[in-house]
């Protein structure tokens, strides 16, 4: 097993070192190395099928995705790969799903109250002491995100529109206040106004509690709304470019095609 250099260990909240991920026999992600500093805002761009969602699900602990043996992922200094999905969440990692899953009959309020209590296990320091206070708090958050507050009394994603599901993902993110928020294609189903509200919410978390944000999308048009610190391009499971907002201009001008040759070269 390779050891990460000391500087990476200290300055990164999340650090991927030579990460190779397989599902079954198929390798989806090839030898990725990236660092995510605490409180920074990252975007990973890439066309469909580039492995972006795999990366997101893998990091959240989906059991189908397996890392190659010499891969190393640390989160807040600890080995992420040894944690189950629920342990990762309680450690402060959050994934906003591309396609949130319906659980009929499970009331959103009860579900979130349970997750909130797990995330903030010390009852004494928890800002919302009772489920009643918590419900009011949820309603305020919902209004901020232009989500109908009555949805929190419904079954989880039961009868939700695509946009409502996505707004609820952001609301959950706000509730759980993670150290790292991964948003997988959050823009699908959201209109421009909702995206702006989301961007504002994310920056608020970033500023107030120093959340690190990783936005995953194939729409470079929406990236400007979020003003990221770092932009990376993933194609065919390989990291082909990394830079700041200037990289965005290149993508806007040339599309992903200009990077595709790079992907082949890298391999």
């Amino acid at each position: 097993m390779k050891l990460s250099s000391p500087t990476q260990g200290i300055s990164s909240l999340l650090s991927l070192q030579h990460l190779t991920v397989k599902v079954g026999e198929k390798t989806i992600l090839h030898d990725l190395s990236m660092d995510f500093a605490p409180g920074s805002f990252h975007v990973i761009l890439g066309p469909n099928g580039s492995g972006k969602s795999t990366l997101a699900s893998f990091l959240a602990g989906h059991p189908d995705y397996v890392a190659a043996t010499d891969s190393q992922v640390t989160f807040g200094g600890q080995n992420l790969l040894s944690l189950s999905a629920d342990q990762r969440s309680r450690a402060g990692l959050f994934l906003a799903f591309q396609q949130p899953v319906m659980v009929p009959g499970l009331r959103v309020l009860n579900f979130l109250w349970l997750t909130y209590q797990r995330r903030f296990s010390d009852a004494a320091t928890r800002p919302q002491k009772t489920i009643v206070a918590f419900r009011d708090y949820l309603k305020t958050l919902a209004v901020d995100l232009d989500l109908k507050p009555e949805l929190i009394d419904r079954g989880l994603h039961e009868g939700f529109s695509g946009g409502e599901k996505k707004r609820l993902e952001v609301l959950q993110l706000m509730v759980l206040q993670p150290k790292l928020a991964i948003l997988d294609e959050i823009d699908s189903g959201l209109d421009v106004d909702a995206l702006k509200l989301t961007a504002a919410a994310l920056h608020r978390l970033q500023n107030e509690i120093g959340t690190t944000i990783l936005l995953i999308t194939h729409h470079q048009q929406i990236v400007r709304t979020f003003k990221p610190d770092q932009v990376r391009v993933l194609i065919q499971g390989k990291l082909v470019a990394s830079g700041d907002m200037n990289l965005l201009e290149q993508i806007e001008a040339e599309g992903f095609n200009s990077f595709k040759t790079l992907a082949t070269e890298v391999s």
Partner: protein
Amino acid sequence: MSRFIAKPDLQPTAVAAGKKLLANDYQFGFSYPTANYAFVAQPGLSQQVVEQISEFKTEPAWLRASRLQALTEFERKLMPAWGADLSGIDFKSFHYYLRPTDVVAKTWQDVPADVKKTFDRLGIPEAERGVLAGVKAQYDSEVVYGSLKKTWADDGVIFLSMDEAIKQHPDLVREYFGKLISHQDNKFAALNGAVWSGGSFVYVPKGVHVKMPLQTYFRINSANAGQFERTLIIVDEGASVHYVEGCFTAGTLITTRVGIKPIEQVTEADLVLSHTGSWRAINQTQVRSYDGKLYTVTVTGQPSVGIQATVEHPFLVVRRKYLNERNQIWSTAWQPVSSLKPKDYVCSPIDRTVNDFETQNIEIPMGRGRHGFKLETVTVPTTADFFRLAGFYLAEGSISDEHYLSFSFNEAERDYIEDVKNLIQKIFGKVSLAESHHLKNHGTSVVVSSTKLARIFKIWFGAGCDHKQIPEWMLQADLAKQAQLILGWYWGDGSFYSKQLKHGFKEMFRLCTTSEKLAWQMRQLLLRQDIATSMNVRSRRHEGRRTMFTLVVGGEAAVKFGDLVGQPIKATLHYKKRATAFYIDDKYFYAPIKSIEIDTVKNVPVYNFSVQTDESYVAGGVAVHNCTAPNFSASSLHSAVVEIFVKAGARCQYTTIQNWYQNVYNLVTKRACVEREGEMIWTDFNMGSKVTMKYPGFILAGEGAKGEVLSMALAGAGQHQDTGAKAVHLAPHTSSTIISKSISKAGGRTSYRGLVHIGPKAHHSKNTVVCDALLVDDLSRTDTYPVEKIFTNLVEVQHEATVSKIGDDQLFYLMSRGLDETTARKLIVNGFVADLVRKLPLEYAVEMNRLIDMEMEGSVG
């Protein structure tokens, strides 16, 4: 989520049912020795046994003939070749009749001491004091004790054991007995017809609405015993009743409707509060003879009832660290009572569930006299305002002449008078409101002249000061609303007490009531607000007055309480922080032990409950663990027959929650006949047993009759729940709904088996069948066997069936939010049945969720 339409599988294969019982922890169980039974029938079935039963019951000739005819039918009939595997039943091995006492006890005094003590522990004598609306407790095959609230008797409601009914109302029973389910119906109905004993008879006269559910508790105390009760219910024209049977194997089901109570008072209770703050069912009660030390534990802040326990009986406690200082760390542990010391803390669980509703529907009877009652449903907005008004009512309210709702104050309490008037107008709009002044005692009453309001308050909050109570739906309401209830009550019945003593001030809030029930309920509500109280009981018999229950709020709790009621007090007293001896956290209320007394006893019967899941219960207000429970390795048979006659315009709801032991064959025939515009609702929840075959049915015989079956089944390892419904439409414009939900886990099997028969005359009838099955893992199995026989064209028939599996995507989603896999599974399963469970009365809904949680624990697929 993978949902697909189930295809009927016409080739049922028998699962290896019952081969593997769950590992049981009950090998040290005790059971009541049957040697003292007045009569134990020989195992096996014969004409002689049947004749003996009839003789012992001194039955009329027609009934004896009926039994013998049933026996012939039973012998002639083959075992059902369909449904679950019944090959494990050995009819020769069962005792068909056990009779614990010589005489059916009429009053509590007649009950033999041994049995009495058991019921004493279950709190049954409370029933006699009129607290309880109506209970029939069945001890093995015989009803030994029962009581019926006087008001019903006045209305002509009959609620008796079948044996009593045959003696007291022979013609009525004979007219209906076996008319709906004849001995020819099926082998098990025939068996019941031959050997039945126990069960209930209910007759509700025309136009009478029985508001509180009638409840029965059953137990099977002996191995190899059969339970063959027979229930007959007749709801006459325009009447209504809700009958609830809780059949818990080898144990009596106790549910506390109203939070924490000493065990002596658990009467109308259906569940006990366990140490985890959950409502849990009791599996069993045990009796054994005990020689040795008996401990009596008394707790600070509780009426000195003392909890008696044997040496090894474990209590949930926190050890005292320093004698004169309150603990800092609160880690609980089970400790035998013999190791406890005064000042150690005992734990009272707090039910922190919030289940709030914006409105509540209440059915109130309107109209009187010749024309009978009409039930009217009123929707009440259950706002914080309503809670405060309810608080005022609990303190100062009364009902007079059934039509007037009044709140009495001292004339100086102008603020409260105005508040009450405003609240009434705000909540109920335009009502006839007046103030009446009583010069003699400087009193002012706000009087509302409204039959409707008077009845709402009477039904929910009780009438007469020692019967005041908080309705169940309020007990788990929003905390802010409950705070308003407390506020209203405090303004009415509370006071701040400040007295200078030699060494300084003594300050506290005090709340008084003569309703014991209300006092315990309020204590629990205050705990939810993190406010600890001491309860004092003062008998005022010598003054010719009722016993007074006072909740005392002192120390840091008083600071909190002061804030709650808008009467803040300083956090310090004599420059020191106010403090109590108590402590509260998320789970428990901790109170120090005041004293422990030890007696040495000889040959004393001691009693114990076995409680679902947590194996603990709250005795005398504190959490104790149960010891052990009986273990019957031989299989038991429950084969009941229930016949219900719903007359024109009448309504009957029959609710069953069964959680039998793993060795019980539960084979029950239930049927109702519904006349014009009548309504029958079966709510049937089945868990536990090795095999269940049960298909509650109704015959919609009159125009416009309605029927509904809500059924839920859960099958685990080695279990087969074969359940469903029979809807027979014989008259036009009849409608029926069948909703069935089943859960299979750990290799368990559920089947839905339904018959919808719409006869040629039943034009314009409607039927809807929805059956949803959930498979928790790949080992388990579910099937549907729907049969539709339709003989007219003008009908609407719908059948929907879905099978879903707990999907990996669902689990991953919930786990990615920090929930462990077991919790995630529980949430999915509870969500699956949520819409059905919501139709149960609140306490049963809570129980159902707990039972399901328990079943799901450790069942990782």
